[in-house]
């Protein structure tokens, strides 16, 4: 059994939220747990929150559900930071289940936990399958507070993004930032209908924009380093010549890789794209589990 002072989760209506916690509790012990959830989707997560409530209570774990108004970036930032910081006195390692966690919340948690000098382990539970659509109506891309890097007005802008099933979000990234260079790291493999839902759309679009600074390369978010080495190789040649915006639109583990890349190159900016609509049938079941440590 691994022992953690602090566990961080994000409640979702996806089955892998509850099933994931079952797996987590089978292998880990926690002193204190915080479970964030979106106020906007409160009704969708009521039942599963009640179930995991019982899990934690039965295990004698101190836990707290914390509501986030995810439509407000400031509220989300302040609440997540305050929740993590208020647990600063609980010494020990931290565990974070990133499976159903929005990227801005994930990165805010990773930074807050790291600032407490904790060792941070993360887990990602893949689903059995994804629904026909995941999210829609993306909002304007935003830079994460205090992770927005240092840019120079004389330098051109490059955006480096891992791609996912929401092609709309990639297009929003491009039209908002209007970068001189857009580097798309496209997840390899046929899992979860990846060819139809990710590769094809992005390659077709990128081919049409080849003369306009859009390039693609392969990445494997399910590998041990979640594609970090490949991302690093593409960023290194331009790190001094370009302002850089990083975005993770691909599998959730690529968000960890992007975050690690940002830590290596803090002059770059972390960017995310909130969505207005999420699918009730986002995913089914639970698949493999990936583990990692934030070095």
């Amino acid at each position: 059994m691994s022992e953690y002072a602090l566990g961080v989760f994000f409640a979702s209506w996806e089955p892998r939220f509850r099933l994931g916690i079952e797996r987590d509790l089978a292998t880990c012990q926690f002193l204190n747990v915080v479970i964030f959830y979106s106020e906007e989707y409160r009704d969708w997560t009521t039942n599963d929150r009640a179930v995991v409530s019982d899990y934690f209570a039965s295990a004698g774990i101190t836990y707290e559900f914390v509501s986030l108004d995810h439509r407000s970036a400031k509220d989300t930032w302040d609440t997540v930071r305050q929740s993590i910081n208020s647990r600063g006195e609980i010494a020990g390692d931290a565990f974070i289940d990133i499976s159903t966690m929005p990227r801005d919340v994930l990165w805010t948690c990773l930074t807050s936990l790291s600032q407490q000098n904790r060792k941070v382990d993360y887990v990602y539970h893949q689903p059995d399958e994804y629904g026909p659509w995941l999210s829609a109506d993306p909002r304007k891309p935003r830079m994460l507070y205090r992770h927005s890097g240092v840019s120079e007005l004389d330098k051109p802008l490059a955006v480096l993004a891992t791609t996912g099933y929401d092609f709309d979000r990639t297009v929003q990234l491009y039209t908002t930032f209007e970068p001189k260079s857009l580097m798309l790291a496209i997840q390899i493999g046929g899992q979860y209908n990846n060819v139809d839902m990710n590769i094809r759309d992005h390659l077709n679009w990128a081919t049409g924009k080849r003369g306009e600074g859009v390039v693609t390369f392969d990445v494997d978010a399910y590998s041990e380093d979640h594609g970090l080495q490949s991302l690093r190789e593409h960023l290194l040649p331009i790190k001094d010549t370009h302002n850089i915006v990083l975005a993770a639109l691909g599998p959730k583990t690529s968000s960890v890789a992007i975050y690690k890349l940002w830590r290596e190159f803090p002059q770059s900016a972390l960017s995310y794209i909130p969505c207005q609509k999420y699918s009730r049938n986002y995913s089914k079941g639970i698949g493999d589990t990936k583990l990692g440590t934030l070095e």
Partner: protein
Amino acid sequence: MEASTNPFVYDTANNLEPSTILDVYIKDNNYHRFIESKRNVVLEGERGSGKTISLLYSSQKVKQLQRERLGEKQDYSTVGVYVPCNNPLMHKREHELLPAVQSDILSEHYLVLVLLHYFVSTLEVIKDISEESLLEIEEEIKYVLGWDLPKNVGVLKGMRLFLSRLQRLVQEQANDFNQEIFYRRALSFSSSVLPLVEIVKSVPELRETHFLFLIDDAHDLNTHQRRVLNSWISFREHPSFSFKVAVAKVIDNDYVTVNGGTILEGHDFTAINMERPFQDEQSEFGKLAAEIVERRLERAGIKITAKQFFPENEDVKREIEAAKDAVRAEYIAAHGASNTKKISDHVYKYGRARFFQNRSSKANHVQYSGFDTLTHVSTGVVRNLLDPCYWMFERMQSSLKEGESPSSITCIPPHIQDEVLRQRSETLWERLQHDLSRSVLGCTEEQAHQVYQLVDNLVAHLRDRLLNHPTEPRAIAFTISAQTEETRQVLMPLLDIARKFQILYTRRGSAKDEGKKETYYVPNRMLLLDRGLDPVGQHARVSLKASDLIAASEGKPLPSVTKQDLLQEKLFDE
């Protein structure tokens, strides 16, 4: 333009070299003199309407190159400072974590840093400032502004490096959890830009200079920054500088200042709509379109007029003339031949419509060709003009034999023009159906579907008019009647999405009531081709009820044209 042999390749103006801007930009029949004036100007228009290239043409780099090419002495009576607002500093949001007053101060600081950076970079382009003047500037900057410039790098470069350092400091502080976000030495327009401009103007070489601050993509500023900019604009008639501000068209553009006042069009600034309402041959845009095309062709080694390069199908031309003749003869038979103006008006209204009405009974489609058609299809937007031209040229280029130069292409045959125009029209409909929600920020999938249905039904209605309307068959612009607050809340967001996607354009024109101005709407005429309509259109507007338009967005066709409707319809001749 940089690497392609196609003279109509369209690149965003920011990607063009100054030499290319000089080569392709047409200042006549454009708004160049407004931009060069000492008045504040707001340029409104969606992407592709020519805002950026118009500003860049007045930037110091381009003007300097132009004089070098002409062998003329440099003239610094106006110096254009190009300031792009879509830059990484403007995407920063840390100020949102601060209390309101501090947030506003930090917001303005970012904007001022950007303005100062491009101001100083522009000064660096000017080679005629003497060493003595530069030292004078340096001394005054140290004394008045307290700037500690780096040594041994030159005054202007030193200023730019100093500002780069300030940019870096404020960003590092914002990202450093060990420091507060708020930057206590924030700059403002009055504390830095105003004195710096006066310092620079104190030297002989720039004493008479009027600086044009060419602010591009001002819609990318946050609310406070826009209000700060509006406050700067309210410094109207300042002898040392003026603002030329390019914004994507916003129906309810915010002209509020930081003090809650409002800047007024006509009083504080001149507003220019970059999307031209008229596209006929004699209009400003018609002449501009011809010049743009001919200049680009000449640059590609093809010396020919736009009309010769894009000839009209002779059979279609004859049939249209025959339809006009028939309509003329009918009118004369009914009313006599004495009133030539009335005859001419009648032929204008019904001649082309008769041609289209005749076509509808035949199996084959209308052939679209000719430079006039291209100009009208553009709906007054330069990019819309260049896009089909580009694809037509590509088609011709792909059929060249080995060794044949693109400059050997001396015309685009009418059937190629027609095929490409139809393809582009079909593509636009497909994009409208599938790309709307991903292309327009904030557009939901539901709204995308509503907009598609609205436009689909609108164009069907216009076709109905073309084939059946007894008085104004070729009207394609419309106004909205019977608007209530309720209908406004439903309809206006959809029209705004359509406008942002550039399938609908808004115009301001005279209303019949008491000479007021009213807003009217024109569909992107490229949409009309796929449905067999006349892109040339007519200077008339139809009045459509808000409730009917809302119903159209829900899939219901607009009411068919009846005589009863004619009695109630408001029609305007311009």
